[in-house]
């Protein structure tokens, strides 16, 4: 059953040194505030899993939290390289980073297999590609009915899944919508799940019966962190901070400017800083640009 905790307590209760951690969010709902808390708590030797490691994983890697990365696309979307990721792979800074690289299809299938309690995922993939030559976790199986050779990768079973969602209700159930990525699969595949939310509501109110709801018994801890996905976005709450993604390129290019930025923005900051970072990007409420509808909130923290 989920408990409502402060972000620091939630991360402390779930993430230990050496854990395999999946912080998911496919461009949308990236758990940035939770990732920053992991950095502040000084977690080490993590195996980080994520289809699209972007700024948050660049920060975790640059701060030396990770020994290994399992991923399928490591870039700053539409901008270019992840410089801390590159520095770790190309120069071993701040220390060497082992990589296990897949395709998106493989990762998505592997999360589903993890959620489904299967040992591996089977799909039609990697045909004619070089990744199977450098990643011995990519193997093949023969269909017992047709004889077709199919790709197989191990299921993803993280120790911890960390995600950000739009809201939780009083009972600790979690709702997410919009681009839902692989978060449901990551939570159900993991031993423990920590969720940050934009707000805690009395009741979810009218919603599609097919909305993505994570029942409270699938989640260990919930922390309310308004703006906690910044510079990613929370559909219905605030926009993606595209200018910030563009600015990250210069901040992260140089080791010193990266460390200075991390020192002020992350080590010297906290979850309470995120609400201000999304103020100008809000899509409803006092700073609204779009006047979209938000839900009735009991603790929107704005």
């Amino acid at each position, binding site marked *: 059953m989920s408990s409502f905790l402060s972000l620091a307590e939630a991360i402390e209760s779930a993430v230990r040194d050496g854990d395999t951690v999946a912080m998911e969010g496919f461009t949308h709902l990236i758990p940035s505030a939770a990732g920053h808390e992991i950095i502040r708590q000084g977690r080490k030797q993590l195996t980080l899993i994520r289809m699209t490691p972007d700024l948050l994983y660049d920060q975790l890697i640059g701060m030396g939290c990770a020994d290994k990365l399992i991923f399928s*696309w*490591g870039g700053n979307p539409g*901008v270019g390289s992840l410089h801390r990721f590159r520095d770790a792979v190309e120069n071993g800074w701040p220390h060497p980073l082992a990589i296990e690289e897949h395709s*998106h299809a493989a990762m998505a299938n592997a999360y589903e297999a993890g959620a489904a309690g299967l040992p591996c995922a089977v799909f039609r993939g990697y045909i*004619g*590609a070089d990744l199977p030559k450098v990643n011995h976790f990519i193997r093949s199986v023969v269909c017992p009915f047709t004889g077709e050779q199919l790709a197989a990768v191990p299921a993803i079973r993280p120790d911890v899944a960390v995600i950000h969602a739009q809201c939780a209700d009083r009972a600790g159930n979690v709702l997410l919508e919009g*681009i839902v990525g692989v978060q449901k699969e990551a939570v159900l595949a993991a031993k423990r799940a920590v969720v940050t939310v934009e707000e805690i509501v009395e009741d979810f109110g009218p919603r599609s019966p097919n909305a993505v709801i994570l029942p409270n018994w699938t989640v260990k801890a919930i922390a309310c962190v308004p703006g906690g996905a910044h510079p990613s976005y929370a559909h219905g709450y605030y926009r993606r901070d595209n200018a910030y993604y*563009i600015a990250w390129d210069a901040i992260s290019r140089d080791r010193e400017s990266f460390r200075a930025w991390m020192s002020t923005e992350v080590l010297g900051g906290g979850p309470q800083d995120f609400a201000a970072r999304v103020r100008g990007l809000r899509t409803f409420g006092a700073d609204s640009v779009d006047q979209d509808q938000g839900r009735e909130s009991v603790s929107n923290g704005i």
Partner: protein
Amino acid sequence: MTYTPTEIMTAAAARALRNEDVCFVGIGMPSAACNLARLTHAPDITLIYESGTIGTRPAVLPLSIGDGELCDTALTTVPVAEMFRYWLQGGRITVGFLGGAQIDRFANLNTTVVGPYTKPKVRLPGGGGAPEIATSCGEIYIIMNQTRRSFVEKLDFVTSLGHGEGGDHRRRLGLKTRGPTKLVTDLCVLEPDPNTKEMTVVSIHPGVTRERIEASTGWPIRYAHDVGETPPPTAGELEVLRDLHARTARAHGVAAGGAAHA
């Protein structure tokens, strides 16, 4: 009307798309070309981004494959695992539109590393959806700037399959999809030779010489029997494309022509 090499490349790529296509869109230049097609001759084209958005009609070009704009304007948005399993692997996509860092004469693409995999000179982002897009879509269009650095004799890494070693290589791997059928660059348009599958110049953009194309290609490039001249972008296409880029730049808080081209 004057235009840039990127503009004629984008327009030539957009024209290859049909109104009835279901297109899996890569970010950057493919996204600009696909949306230009949608805003001009192919208003009913179904654009799909790997974040799960199906039938999206963005007013501005997304910076990432999962910008909110794509979800807001989509017919529907599905989970990422469903996107890759049912829609891509299930064979529902007619055209996959890709870019890349390096390409060879058989349109195999590298977006993984420059140099050896275990000790790369440059670590690139990696394949993302490309390995399966390249084999599961009915056919593949590729849009790339043509330089000696990007058009190479031998790839450092095959991220996604084109025509492999050429000839019937795709068939021998058990594939029924067509692979790369069109490669549009800032200098010319290439299509695979029907037999060898080597990418061959079929039309040259106005003002571009064969010498220039050869100086920008890392292998002895071949030409089709009848090489035409690529029709320049029309005033209408340029107006739509420039409006799209201007709206995008305003929305992303950057100067026009900035990161949207990355």
